[in-house]
């Protein structure tokens, strides 16, 4: 099927913003082109839960009117943005891909969405995700799974699968995701796009439905590192509505993007280079990245960060524990689904049984157990101490290195239904991404080409210490330049 409006839907966000600013094209035209592409192709990918056509057109018209009035335009004026359905949007439903919030409209906007709207971005729709951000394939969505644009029989990754797929399919040049254990980075790798997890506290969590409060962080998806930095700068910064947001203003990252990696000390994490079930092409991609970094002037070596091996065990206690508490509010009393019952506790239980999918229920059960009397110390308490060990290990590594490298995901995109039988199998997809989340640090997944055997995208993870997005982005940019990948549009392939 031939994509329509190709002129506009293949461009970078920076490119589109410049065109709109110059008046080469109207915001309405840009929005229209993307809406048409979505209408033509998203039936197969199903990256959107909801496309806000009327709202997007109105917002685009607003940008055009502002430009006509001679007003200064924001840095993202006229650029379409796909928003993971975990972010509250006043004008569009916010469901977290759960039946328990089907059709719910928040009475307020999340801070991030409000800021991006103020920057002129056009919210094109809400993207699909694993229900309440719990999953690594978007198959846990309460409504339907999203397909990987590179192969419609495969998963886009998760939990931000819809956003990653939307960017990969060029339905929007930019998208928002959330990353708790890897939910931006892993789908970015599987869909061949750039995804960044900022340092915990960099981006406001106010208005982002909470999954695991001490791990959740919002971040950008884009097709290029420069676009990623552009979106990051427009969305991050202190928010008085979020007590955990870092008070000091972040340093700009766009300005230093082209600084290169000469003299940078880069460490390949031993324990993650060869994890269980790693695909040979993924291992190879990290090795060739090493060569490219060295060519660009960096010093590359291997480094041991032993406690990353415990990351999954700690994560799959801490995240469900916090989630079990965060999801207690879905009880059929004030909003959302209510299942009838004669008595309130029964009503709560019936509502949650009907409204939550299996994975959400599993994690709530796991988390409740880990916090319950007699088990707190052994599970939750111990996991929090392991978290400290991981932080210390990373601190040790960062004494000798500026940046750490690993695969993002052990494999390329797996088939729909392939890993759904056993939850543990799915959890293992997060082995490389979870440690950064536990440490509260920052990491980015950069596409480094298609695996020769299956033609599917491979992503490489660049990890920086907390607050060091500058180094991560500039290293990503350098590697992106060295890779010099063509930017193919995936042909939306229907499985044979």
């Amino acid at each position: 099927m031939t994509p329509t409006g190709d002129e506009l839907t293949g461009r970078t966000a920076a490119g589109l913003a410049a065109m709109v600013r110059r008046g080469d094209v109207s915001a309405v035209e840009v929005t229209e082109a993307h809406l048409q592409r979505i209408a033509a192709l998203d039936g197969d990918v199903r990256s959107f839960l909801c496309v806000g056509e009327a709202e997007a057109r109105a917002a685009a018209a607003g940008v055009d009117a502002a430009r006509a009035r001679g007003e200064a335009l924001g840095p993202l004026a006229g650029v379409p943005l796909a928003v993971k359905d975990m972010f509250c949007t006043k004008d569009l439903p916010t469901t977290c891909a759960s039946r328990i919030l089907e059709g719910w409209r928040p009475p307020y906007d999340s801070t991030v969405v409000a800021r991006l709207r103020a920057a002129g971005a056009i919210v094109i729709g809400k993207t699909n995700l694993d229900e309440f951000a719990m999953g690594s394939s978007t198959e846990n969505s309460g409504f339907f799974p999203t397909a990987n644009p590179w192969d419609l029989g495969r998963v886009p990754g998760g939990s931000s699968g819809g956003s990653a797929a939307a960017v990969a399919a060029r339905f929007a040049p930019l998208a928002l995701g959330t990353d708790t254990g890897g939910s931006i980075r892993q789908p970015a790798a599987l869909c061949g796009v750039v995804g960044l997890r900022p340092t915990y506290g960099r981006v406001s969590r106010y208005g982002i439905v909470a999954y695991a409060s001490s791990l959740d962080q919002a971040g950008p998806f884009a097709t290029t590192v420069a676009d990623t930095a552009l979106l990051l700068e427009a969305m991050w910064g202190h928010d008085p509505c979020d007590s955990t947001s870092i008070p000091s203003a972040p340093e700009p990252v766009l300005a230093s993007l082209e600084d290169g990696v000469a003299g940078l000390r880069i460490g390949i994490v031993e324990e993650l280079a060869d994890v269980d079930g790693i695909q040979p092409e993924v291992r190879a991609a990290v090795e060739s990245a090493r060569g490219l970094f060295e060519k660009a002037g960096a010093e590359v070596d291997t480094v041991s960060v032993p406690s990353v091996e415990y990351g999954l065990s700690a994560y799959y206690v801490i995240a469900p524990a916090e989630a079990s508490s965060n999801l207690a509010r879905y009880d059929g009393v004030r909003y959302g689904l209510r299942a009838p019952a004669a008595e309130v506790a029964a009503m709560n239980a019936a509502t949650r049984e009907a409204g939550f999918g299996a994975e959400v229920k599993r994690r709530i059960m796991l988390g409740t157990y880990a916090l319950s009397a007699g088990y707190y110390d052994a599970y939750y308490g111990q996991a929090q101490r392991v978290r400290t060990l991981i932080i210390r290990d990373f601190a040790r590594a960062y004494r000798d290195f500026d940046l750490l490298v690993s695969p993002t995901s052990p494999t390329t995109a797996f088939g729909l239904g392939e890993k759904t039988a056993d939850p543990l199998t799915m959890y293992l997809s997060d082995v490389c991404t979870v440690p950064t989340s536990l440490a509260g640090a920052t990491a980015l997944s950069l596409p480094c080409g298609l695996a020769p055997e299956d033609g599917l995208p491979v992503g490489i993870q660049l990890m920086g210490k907390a607050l060091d997005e500058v180094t991560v982005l500039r290293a990503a940019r350098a590697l992106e330049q060295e890779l010099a990948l063509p930017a193919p549009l995936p042909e939306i392939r229907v499985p044979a």
Partner: protein
Amino acid sequence: MTGEAGAGLGQELITTIGLEIHVELATRTKMFCGCPVAFGGEPNTRVCQVCLGHPGTLPVPNAEAIAYAAKIGMALGCAIAPSSIFHRKNYFYPDMPKNYQISQYDIPLCTGGAVAIETDGVPAAVGITRVHLEEDTGKSLHMGGGGRIHGADYSLEDFNRAGTPLVEIVTEPDMHSADQARAFATELRATLEALEVSDIRMEEGSMRFDANISMAPPGRLGAKVEVKNLNSLRSLHRALAYEEQRQREVLGDGGTIEQSTRHWDERAGVTRPLRTKEHAFDYRYFPEPDLVAIEPPADWLESIAASLPELPAARRRRFEEQFGLSAYDAGVLVASRPAAAYFEAAVAAGRKAEPKEVANWLANDLVGLLTKRGESIEACAIPPEHLAELVDLVAGGEISRLQGREVLDDMAAAGAGGPPPAAIVEKKGLRQLSGGDELAAVLDEVIAANPDVWARLRAGDTKPEGFLFGQVMRATKGQANPSAVRNLLKTRLDG
């Protein structure tokens, strides 16, 4: 559910009482959001997405609430933790917007204080285990069962109160009688009143008491019975006295008391067991990830300490020392903040009258009068300067005490802006005859009119003195100063 074996008849039982007090803070806004704090009003009109627990919302602590909590802790002699954190207390209930309450658990804001009390002249100290901050729940209205939760058909939830800052104060189990519990509660209430951190109206729920009471022979621990629904200090006393008696009877008969919760029924004057769910109370506390630590800086703590007002204990001591009041009188005055303020203003305005006199007039005459008129000392129309003037007039002998009461009645009736006592005395011609020629002249007339009585008096018979005295009083229409008359009579008799 632990039980304590009965003590058998006649064995000595010691009562042990601990109190848990929740105080709603009178800040402008809620603990974690900017909704206003107030009592009453239309349901669900003081709510926002944060205090309703909407998805995606986050709490931000109210600085003033923390200051108030620190003030309370300091006033109760507690240490303020250099670093304290919030915890989540997880349980499901329809008045809980998030189905967890943000509270404090093992690292509260304040610990380790004490409050001095006195019952029947016997002093005691009640330890304060902790003072911490948390958020209040919404309010349930139970429909169809006569308002009680049991037998209701359904319930209606109002979240106006949800998120109101609450301070929880927990005492050591240092009280051993209903009297001591009430004395503590009274002193606590007076202290909170002085701090101006809460409306402290038990009838409105801004101050709530739960009590734990157990009884056991000396050296043993009894099973704790929690008593709820204590809506006034009087209920607190009655309920604890009742429960003490009930437990004594049960144990005396060889029965056991089980750890349980009971509800005080004010009308029936009894406690009744409350049904509690078996799997209750696994609150799964864990540190609140959405909030960061509270680490009060030294200078902030100093300014809070400096801002503490004179507390009741210190004020009582000062009233005793500075004004020479008895412990009892000082206690009565200090128990009411407006009365204490009125007292000091009156003393400052007075000239001849001793503070003791002012205290007397205030506590007995004025308060009694106001109570009869259904008025309060807070809204008293008579300015303290006028009371002072009245007391001065009596102290100076210009009017009698009896006349003074009459003037006071007039002043109260006149209301705000009424004339000062001197003017009333003038208008009514009440000035007492205290001496000089006028009184002497009256005495002469009375003596002249009663020669036989005078002769008997001069002969040494003291009995008719009262009669003569009365005659002088009658002749002066009660306006003669009694002691002046007596002195004059004595002088005459001697002379």
